[in-house]
């Protein structure tokens, strides 16, 4: 199974622990990139190295898979997009993304369908959902444009900066029949 693929303009590939920590750190050090999750931005580069090791372990146990999205021409890292909490019994998973300012809807509309095609056709999952900090309209609009449907809001899922965080849920259901 090939986990790396190319779209018209972008390279969608699994990260390499030894070489990607600098670029990943530059992406995840930006608080605005993590606000929709929400999560605190990275502060030092070794956190990105640790994150890459964790991703590798989670990938080996088939619990998660994260891809780096690069501009094929320039090599610029535009986003990290992944699925996690893969439930192989229920055939569902949670999508998560961190998008650089250069990653807009046009990029997502080229890259996300390719990832979802892989998730539905190759991994044979049935449902992919994303949980967003409630009220994040920018990411909600991205999801809606990509065909996701809003399903509701889960209250008080955790605390972040002394606030109870509610999460909006959006999902996409596979139309594939196996």
């Amino acid at each position, binding site marked *: 199974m090939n986990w790396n693929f190319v779209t018209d303009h972008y390279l969608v590939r699994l990260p390499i622990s030894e070489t990607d920590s600098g670029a990943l750190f530059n992406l995840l050090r930006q608080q605005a990139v993590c606000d929709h999750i929400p999560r605190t931005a990275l502060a030092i580069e070794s956190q990105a190295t640790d994150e890459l090791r964790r991703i590798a372990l989670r990938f080996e146990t088939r619990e998660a898979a994260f891809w780096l999205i690069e501009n094929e021409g320039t090599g610029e890292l535009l986003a990290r997009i992944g699925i996690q909490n893969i439930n192989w*019994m*229920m*055939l*569902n998973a949670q999508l998560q993304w961190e998008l650089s300012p250069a990653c807009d809807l046009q990029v997502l509309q080229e890259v996300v369908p390719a990832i979802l095609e892989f998730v539905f056709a190759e991994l044979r999952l*049935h*449902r992919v*959902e994303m949980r967003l900090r409630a009220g994040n309209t920018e990411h909600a609009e991205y999801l809606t444009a990509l065909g996701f*449907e809003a*399903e*509701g*809001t*889960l*209250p*008080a*899922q*955790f*605390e972040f900066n002394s606030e109870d965080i509610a999460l909006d*849920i959006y*999902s996409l*259901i596979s139309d594939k*029949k*196996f």
Partner: protein
Amino acid sequence: MKFTPELEFTGGRVKPLHYDDIDALFELYQHPEIPGQRPLTDKEHLNRMVDYSVQMAATQRGMMWAIEVDGQIQGMVSGFDWQPSHLRIMMRVDALPALTDEHRASALQVCLEFLQNKYHVRNFGYQWIEGQKESIKYCISTLGFECAAILRGAWRTGDTEFADVHQYHFISDKAKPVPKRLGDGDSPGQNLNSNGGNA
């Protein structure tokens, strides 16, 4: 050591799972109320479940009670996916058809109260799976649960069949615990026998 208390409610009680109850629990698992769940065939699995129920409670991963009405086990209340640092847990009741909705609600209620008072859990989830008894939704709404989201096709009922999950939440209005200096007044493992069982 004891981590799961016996709790009385009008008409019955909930109590920790015990090896003596294996036959009654096996009967309960012959009538799964969750769509797609098959009747249990190997009684030995229930011995392991009793072991797990103690281990889960001791490590704050979950808690399981048998529901006893008129001296007969008619169901179970389970708390699972317990996130102690997020003060959150998912609840579930599995019951024989004989268990009334009133007893179902009362049994769940005393467990919610215990988890609020003893462990400061604030956020209780409950997943109603499409195909379960409709009256369960009303039953849990009387305890303060509100439907927060309908998760499409989130429950697999067969090889290629899926059911919607109606996810309910009840948020306790009790105050959050105030962090103390670490080590002051803690009771590792929450053993009810060693600290007076302040259930």
